């Protein structure tokens, strides 16, 4: 068994350091050279038409109309980058919720679970190839927001999303968007490690196979494990079950699984919450490294972690409101909101 593994390794080892598992994906846009005006190909193949009917679009619906009519201070910044959506004044958080290089833009995003509203008019951008931290007390809707980005909320029967969420300028809640295609561009790492009851190798290969990236599977699996800082620990046991790994290793396995398919954005929901300090710092290093090539949004309960690894920080507070969004240094050194300051310094939450 280990012979076979060694064989696999030998052929690939040399290539590990330089190669990215990107090659065979022609449809990805914006991974290199960054043009965030170009719409990603997430539309369902059947519908060509630009559908305007979307789930419960509110009064300030069409984003482009809003951009041209609203005399918002931020629109000047907007025009510079040639893209971007104006932020409705109503629910605008404190700080600077607009960024120039936004990949994801939430506009007046509401999420409901049945009759309870979990998110209220969220307006924020997620910048490309940076780390955006989402912090806030338990139950304030951080996971909900993350799930609304790649439409994982679709899988919850009672969940309902209103408002817009743009990925490369395309509202992902429009009817012609295929959530499966969207999730192939926006990968996710969950709060609790959830490896499949398959071998370590098959865990990482699963996404590649599902997405039809069948060339160089072995190479891509090994590269992903290497990048997730796991390969050294598991290279002799690639055929053993992913469930036999420790919690921290499982979480890095899940990260490897998410990056193996080379998504554009990686959403991480408290990836280190169940880990010891050593494993945590490994994951933190990994996140910082990932941000050189990927856009990362990460939920964390750990203030120091947010401060250490993120470029931007969004502070959600109880009730599902985004209170302040700004550069991480600004949030942690000199937040505009007193409540945010209290939260960060541990006075509540």
């Amino acid at each position: 068994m280990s012979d076979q593994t060694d064989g696999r390794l030998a052929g690939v080892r040399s290539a590990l350091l330089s190669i990215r598992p990107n090659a065979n994906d022609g449809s990805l846009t914006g991974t290199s050279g960054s043009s965030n005006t170009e719409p990603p190909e997430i539309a369902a193949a059947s519908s060509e038409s630009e559908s305007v009917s979307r789930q419960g679009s509110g009064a300030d619906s069409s984003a482009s109309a809003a951009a041209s009519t609203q005399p918002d201070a931020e629109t000047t910044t907007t025009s510079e980058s040639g893209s971007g959506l104006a932020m409705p004044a109503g629910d605008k958080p404190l700080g600077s919720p607009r960024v120039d290089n936004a990949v994801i833009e939430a506009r007046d995003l509401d999420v409901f679970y049945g009759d309870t509203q979990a998110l209220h008019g969220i307006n924020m951008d997620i910048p490309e190839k940076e780390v955006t931290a989402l912090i806030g007390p338990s139950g304030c809707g951080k996971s909900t927001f993350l799930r609304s980005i790649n439409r994982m909320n679709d899988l919850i029967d009672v969940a309902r999303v209103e408002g817009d969420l743009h990925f490369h300028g395309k509202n992902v809640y429009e009817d012609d968007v295929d959530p499966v295609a969207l999730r192939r561009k926006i990968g996710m790492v969950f709060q609790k490690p959830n490896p499949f009851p398959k071998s370590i190798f098959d865990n990482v290969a699963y996404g590649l196979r599902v997405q039809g990236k069948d060339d160089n599977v072995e190479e891509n699996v090994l590269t992903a494990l290497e990048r997730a800082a796991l390969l050294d620990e598991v290279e002799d046991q690639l055929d053993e079950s992913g469930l036999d790994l420790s919690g921290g290793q499982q979480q890095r396995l899940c990260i490897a699984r998410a990056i193996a398919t080379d998504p554009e954005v990686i959403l991480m929901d408290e990836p280190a919450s169940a880990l010891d300090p050593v494993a945590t710092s490994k994951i933190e290093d990994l996140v910082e490294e990932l941000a050189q090539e990927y856009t990362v949004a990460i939920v964390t309960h750990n203030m120091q972690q947010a401060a250490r690894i993120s470029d931007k920080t969004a502070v959600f507070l109880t009730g599902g409101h985004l209170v302040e969004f700004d550069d991480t240094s600004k949030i942690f050194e000199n937040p505009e909101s007193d409540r945010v300051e209290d939260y960060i310094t541990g006075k509540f939450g």
Partner: protein
Amino acid sequence: MSTEPIDLSRNGNDVGTIGDRLARYIFFGCAAVTIATTLAIVLVLVNGATDFFSTVSLTEFFTGTDWSPRAADNPSFGVLPLVWGTLMITVGSALIAIPIGTLTAIYLSEYASSRVRRVVKPTLEILAGIPTIVYGFFALSFITPILQQIYPGTGTFNAAAGAIVVGVMIIPMVSSISEDAMSSVPDSLRNAAYGLGATKFEVSTQVVLPASLSGILAAYVLAISRAIGETMAVTLAAGALAQVTMNPFAEIQTMTAYMVEIGTGDASVGSIGYQSLFAIGLTLFAMTFLMNVLSMWIRSRYREEYQ
């Protein structure tokens, strides 16, 4: 902090101890009754079968292809025609129930909204509660006439109608146990696959099915042993002519149907026909027992390994 010693001695609380013991005896008693009943059944069967096998050789019984216990001058006791009849019903009904039941389970567990599930699941379970004699009448008065339209050579009693009706009868067993196994697969596994861009079909077939395989296989085995033991419906639908035939539209007799025929008929106690009931009963018992062992083996071999 209290310095007073605490009384932990065994007779510190007599009432509690007695109640405890009493409960223990009652629970043990109930378990013992079940075990004793099973043992008694096996003993009775073995005892009767021993008498039978003192007249008929084991070889004749297990390899003979002619079952004519009431032939006046030369009765013949080859069990194979009856086993064949049982197999036809079992295989035929499994061919119907396993695909339909499994697909129903996948639909209910992965595709149906909770509202649909709330209606369909109880409906299926009602199907499982209908007395089997009613199924037999249904086969005789509804399924067989349809088969006769399709294939005019179909007999009034025929294996196909029996297999179909038993198949329908065990669908709820397959679907309900499989559905339980599938819905106990944790959502975190589904989310992992959905998050990687898997479609619902891929999640159902590549993640949920393998993860619940042991429960699903156990459902199959249980449903099959139910089909083996099924009596009233096959007696009514498939008939009482013990023969080895490949023709599904011909009359057959299953082991159980023979037992009904003799058990309710005129075989006098102690006669060879009466003793043959025990031999067949023991064979049936062995078959279903083997199926149950198989189901347990499957469960431990393919234990669901998710967290």
